[in-house]
């Protein structure tokens, strides 16, 4: 079902729940993996994905459609992730590297990555990036999202996003090269 149809059905109280259920089914996987790449842990990703859709439900009535529905949902998901990571840092008074180390430890414990040394180094390098730069890296490298859409989601200019991604790639390549030398 097209986004336009979902939104039309959502306006009608009689079909609102059905429309929202279809919206969840359509976007749940993308939202989950977007969140999961940022928080790594499945349980955290599960909680945040549910929170994202509850927020979507609360604000969908006021959605002005000046952006694509999925861009808008992605923006909510992105904010939830960044808030989650910063509150985790505040809660435990952890510096940036410690949260990165915690995420890297979860990544290393994941059986899916065991045995792939280069992939593990790559993930460690990505997790060392600051949260917002890691977000830019994920959107561009994994999702292959156009910079214009990334700009709508992050509220950052295209030029700044290009620069951020360029620096992120350099940092990742340097880290993996250096750590494979050890």
């Amino acid at each position, binding site marked *: 079902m097209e986004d336009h149809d979902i939104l039309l059905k959502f306006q009608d*109280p009689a079909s*609102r*729940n059905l429309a*929202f*259920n279809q919206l*969840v*089914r359509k976007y*749940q*996987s993308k939202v*989950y*993996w977007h969140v*999961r*790449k940022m928080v*790594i842990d*499945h349980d955290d*990703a*599960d909680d945040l*994905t*549910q929170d994202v*859709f*509850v927020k979507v*439900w*609360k604000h969908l009535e006021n959605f002005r459609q000046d952006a694509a529905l999925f861009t808008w949902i992605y923006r909510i998901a992105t904010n939830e992730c960044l808030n989650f990571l910063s509150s985790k840092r505040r809660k435990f008074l952890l510096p940036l590297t410690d949260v990165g180390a915690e995420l890297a430890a979860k*990544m290393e414990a*994941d*059986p*899916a*990555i065991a045995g*792939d040394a*280069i*992939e593990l*180094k*790559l*993930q460690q390098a*990505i997790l060392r990036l600051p949260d917002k730069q890691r977000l830019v890296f994920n959107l561009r*490298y*994994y999702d292959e999202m156009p910079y214009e859409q990334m700009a709508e989601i992050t509220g950052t200019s295209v030029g700044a996003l290009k620069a951020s991604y360029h620096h992120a*790639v350099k940092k*990742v*390549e340097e880290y*993996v*090269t250096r750590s*494979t*030398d050890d």
Partner: protein
Amino acid sequence: MKPTFKLDAHPRRPRPLLSEPPAGYFDKLPTQIMARLPRADARPAVPGWLAWLTPALRTGLASVAVLGGFAASFFLSGPAPEAPVAVASLDAVPRTELVGYLLTSGARVENSDLAVLTAAHPNITKGFLHASEEELVQALDDQPSEDPTYL
């Protein structure tokens, strides 16, 4: 020298190598999310007109209402009615009646009390004490001199 790592040369994956969510996760997720949505027929926690106010303003309004209630009840209740004066001045009661009351009411009045009273008012105890003046003086002299009552 080892070759430098180039991201473009690395096989690109759609996402990092993370384990898949539990089986059936995406089948159950919509139900879980729908269960968390606020019910459309759920009554709001506050009346509609209060919903326009911020929580801080609502708290302030409640405090003002409680304090206003106290103030209103204080001012509307007026001055408390005076209790009827039930205590008449003891000066109006003859001393003989007082002594008679004390002796018959079970109050602890001892000879020494009567002796002191006699010293101040020689005639008042004649009806109660059947003792000569010498006996009264003797009773007073027998009282311990360090007792401040008699100083």
